[in-house]
């Protein structure tokens, strides 16, 4: 039996009278790559917001590594090693790529003990060593993600696909045990997407569990160990890609539209 990292139990979210998620149940095991898919408005991003503390569910619980996340603030959840990226605003636009990653290293910069601030301001040895280590780590991450050539450019000036990479780099900087990626390949071309799939596998091989929300069906099918399908706020199917591909309920609810997306994408990149 694999170790469960994240489990969503009976979660429901309402916006006023609107039900965004009704009774959602699923789990992610350690070392897995799981995709959460579903048509627009199915509640995927809402689910992410619940898991990372940006939204409080009306009902149900989110458990991460055995701890109930109820009432925890987003930064406290990040502190537990559950880190997410964002669909739209994935970078700090007015900072360089390198500085973006440095900001992401915030958790590493926190010195233990009460004197952290004084040490940092006076430049005491421990703070200096920590600063040096952070800078080295930032440079390493920028290299690893493949953006070395753009390290000193403002993140806001990068292409959309490159910004997604910066977003992932700064999420990695925060030392995740589990990474939630919100539509990471939207805006990437086919070759960028291909490289990104490789990257996701590399991240997993470093021991990070991954949950992603994505519209790009070929990408989802190739990268996922398991897929959870959401429609109208409830889970309609769950299983490995081959099963999901054949599931009639999924085809009905989703793949029709997904196929259209694929056609569109091919047209765009032709």
């Amino acid at each position: 039996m694999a170790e469960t990292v994240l489990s969503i139990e009976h979660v429901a979210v309402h916006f006023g009278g609107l039900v965004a998620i009704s009774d959602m149940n699923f789990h992610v095991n350690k070392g897995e790559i799981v995709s959460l898919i579903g048509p627009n408005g199915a509640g995927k991003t809402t689910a992410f917001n619940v898991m990372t503390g940006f939204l409080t569910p009306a009902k149900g619980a989110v458990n991460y590594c055995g701890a109930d996340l109820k009432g925890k603030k987003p930064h406290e959840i990040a502190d537990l090693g559950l880190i997410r990226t964002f669909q739209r605003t994935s970078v700090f636009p007015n900072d360089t790529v390198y500085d973006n990653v440095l900001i992401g290293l915030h958790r590493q910069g926190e010195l233990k003990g009460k004197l952290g601030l004084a040490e940092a301001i006076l430049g005491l040895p421990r703070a200096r060593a920590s600063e040096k280590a952070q800078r080295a780590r930032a440079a390493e991450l920028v290299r690893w993600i493949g953006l070395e050539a753009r390290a000193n450019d403002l993140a806001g000036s990068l292409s959309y696909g490159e910004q997604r990479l910066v977003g992932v780099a700064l999420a990695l900087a925060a030392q995740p045990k589990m990474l939630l990626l919100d539509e990471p390949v939207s805006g990437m071309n086919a070759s960028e997407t291909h490289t990104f799939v490789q990257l996701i596998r590399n991240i997993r091989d470093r021991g990070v569990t991954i949950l992603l929300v994505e519209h790009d069906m070929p990408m989802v099918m190739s990268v996922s160990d398991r897929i959870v399908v959401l429609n109208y706020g409830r889970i309609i199917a769950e299983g490995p890609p081959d099963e999901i591909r054949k599931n009639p309920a999924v085809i009905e609810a989703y793949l029709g539209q997904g196929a259209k997306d694929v056609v569109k994408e091919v047209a765009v990149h032709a």
Partner: protein
Amino acid sequence: MDQLLQHLVNMLVLGGTYALLGIGLTLIFGIMNVVNFTHGILYTFGAYMMFIVVHQLGLNFFLALPVAIVAGWLLGALIEITLLRPLRGADIDTTMLVMIGAWIAMQSGALWIWGGVAKSIDNPFPDAPLVIGPVSVSWLRLFVLFAAALLIVLAYSLINLTKLGKAMRATFQDSDTAALMGVNVSLIYTSTFAIGSSLAAAAGALLGPVYVVFPQMGDLAAVKAFAIVILGGLGNITGAVIGGFILALAEELGAGYVSSGYRDAMGFLIIIMVLIFKPTGLFARAERVG
């Protein structure tokens, strides 16, 4: 008890003009998202217009009021066109600082032109107050109350019954969509600022004769207007009217039962309390999250 009744009457007179100030500012703040620091100077300007028309031009008191309102309208439109229109799309801090610059320049201008000595404005009402039982109120203050009430009704009708008002409300909801539907957003912004300014000028013109007129009189008025807007909720006209009366009540009771020195602290305390405990204002509608 008698004292309390007197405070309540004073509250009505004060609250009417506060409501005018608040409606003007809540329109500008709500529709344009501009923190308008010139609101107080428009109030001052209205009072000086009153002074000029009555004393320097020697014209009728009742004529001076519409003159002040129209002058406030024109000055507001001028400020919007020269300072705010070129900055459309700038962040709220930038427009706020520009408004601060305009406020400093205009207030110093008022000091330069009219001097720092407070001026009083004569009024045609009898000196003896109207006495009803334990309560006495001057005829001038009664006039102020009725004029303010009339202007509030006019502002209400403008926003709820006219085409312009409809376009203003649409812009408040969503300026991009309003623009797509054919609303001339630039014109709406100018109108909004001009109307808001004319209401501030009206408040100044009404209270000028009650108190005295001096260049810094608008500073406190501006802060009070902010308190009213925060109390009533952004862009909420009814909220602004109720907020105006609540502030007036708090000031009357604070001055009467705590210490007159802290009368003007009431507005600030209200702001701090409301923003800490109920940041959307007392009368805000519950909004959908997300």
